[in-house]
């Protein structure tokens, strides 16, 4: 792969990408005898949109679950913001500033859109159980501040009309957007998107694409995403990791990946509509 400047690089469209935010070193993950991921290393840089692609069953989702702490790899190291991360529970990873969405949407169906997004800020709320009971005013003020931030995200993602709607009633595309809003509400240092466009129609896909770019642009959020739609991935991302059968077969800018013979053989060469 191309050697990169440790301080970062400048993308084709002139965005400055910072130093390494997260680094995966020789990650291997097995389920019993099945190897889901074999010895994969790559990094994610600050401000970058990084994609992980590959055919079905290539181990992309497993990789995302390793990053977000849902799976613990048998071998390899995960480095985040310059520190090696020990084995962690998913909620501890979330508290580090890594937010995620799910391929098959995990929202709180019984709650309103607003409440759902507010849960994204739970880790940022300081008042504990007792201070809330004792200093009601202070807790209320904190709640108001968080509310304002959430309203901004709601405006940003254009979901004002459904603020009070219970999430269970929403159509699929909007649910995906609410899930993105909840992840954003945590003000993550790294945002993980598991197939953000899966199952969407063309219009919804375009919207989601725009939001992902805007989020990256507006908040400077680093984004790592998994996606099936090759066209979308090539347009969106700065660098792409290509996986096949749990191994890394390519890593680089969309153009580099497109011209990589291994990738063409494994993925682009055969029809995978």
């Amino acid at each position: 792969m191309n050697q990169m400047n440790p301080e970062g690089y400048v993308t084709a469209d002139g965005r400055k990408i910072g130093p390494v935010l997260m680094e995966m070193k020789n990650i291997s993950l097995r389920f019993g005898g099945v190897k889901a991921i074999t010895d994969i290393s790559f990094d994610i840089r600050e401000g970058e949109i990084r994609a992980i692609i590959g055919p079905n069953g290539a181990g992309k989702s497993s990789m995302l679950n390793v990053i977000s702490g849902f799976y613990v790899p048998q071998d390899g190291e995960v480095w985040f913001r310059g520190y090696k991360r020990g084995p962690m529970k998913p909620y501890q990873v979330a508290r580090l500033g890594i937010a995620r969405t799910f391929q098959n949407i995990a929202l709180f169906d019984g709650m309103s859109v607003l409440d759902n997004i507010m849960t994204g800020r739970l880790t940022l709320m300081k008042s504990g159980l007792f201070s809330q009971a004792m200093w009601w005013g202070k807790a209320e003020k904190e709640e108001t501040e968080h509310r304002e931030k959430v309203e901004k995200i709601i405006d940003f993602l254009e979901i004002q009309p459904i603020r009070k709607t219970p999430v269970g009633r929403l159509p699929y595309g909007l649910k995906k957007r609410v899930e993105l809003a909840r992840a954003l509400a945590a003000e993550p240092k790294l945002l993980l998107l598991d197939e953000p466009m899966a199952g969407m129609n063309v219009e919804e896909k375009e919207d989601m694409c725009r939001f992902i770019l805007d989020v990256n642009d507006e908040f400077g959020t680093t984004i790592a995403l998994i996606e099936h739609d090759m066209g979308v991935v090539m347009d969106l991302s700065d660098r792409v990791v290509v996986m096949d059968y749990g191994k890394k077969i390519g890593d680089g800018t969309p153009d580099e990946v497109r011209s990589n013979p291994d990738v063409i053989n494994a993925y682009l060469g055969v029809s995978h509509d």
Partner: protein
Amino acid sequence: MPDQLLYAIEAGLNGLMAGVLYALVALGFVLIFKASGIFNYAQGVLALFAALTLVGFQNGQIPFAHLINAIFGTDLHTFGWQLPAIVAIVLAAGVMVILSIIIERYVLKHLVNQAPIILFMATIGLAYFLEGLGDIMWGADIKKLDVGLPQGINETIDTVTYNAFGYGFFIDNLDIVASVVAALLVISLTIFSQYSKQGRALRAVADDHQAALSVGISLRFIWVLVWSIAGFVALVAGIMWGSKSGVQFSLSLIALKALPVLMLGGFTSIPGAIVGGLIIGMGEKLFEFFVGPMIGGATENWFAYVLALLFLVFRPQGLFGEKIIERV
């Protein structure tokens, strides 16, 4: 006013008061069901266990005295002190918190992501285990519980109603205290679950475990928290029932009356538990009063269940339960 109507009003009022006690037990069920989708069969036994522990502490009973005596041939019974009620209550509440940590550590933790029926079975096991534990720890005799709550006929109501209608209503002071305590509990729990950080986390965990983890909520902490609160509610229910009819093992059977209460009020609604309790309490007393004599009485045994059955047929989510939304 005709006598018949006055008697009916008195019966209805007493029913309301009894309903408050049903509601207190139902409240504990709702809390755990909301936070984990578990129907906690052990809630009634929790109330019994809490009341036993409270009496034990208050009278300075030595836990496991019978067991110790049987093994070592000693003759221990009490430490020989009497604790003030408030100290004993705080200690008993502490025991309930420790109990919920143990339950989480040794039962719930191992059953994450299991089907609700499996968790339900686990709570049945828990119920029998706790009943036995309470028995071994504190003895099986019926105990008198007195934490200094006022008891007996409320003279003011008696006098006022006598002057107004020429017939004095009999309302027990203890029932009035129970109503006030229940109201306070419901208000504080509702505020807690709607407006506090932990309350929101609690609702989140109830809805989706995976999503809750992804926003940084520790499932284990929430479970300990909610079982502790349910344990505390059980303690309050135990105190009220215990003061009324003594602490005895039949106390765990009142949990059964909480079932129709929940079907009426909805399994997920705190106010629903209270309203359900009141309707059942008043309904069964009035039904007994009006219909009982015509069909030979003892309607209180089955009225609540028939009412619950009707609700299951016509409004399965209960009066206040969340509407079951199903997108196809």
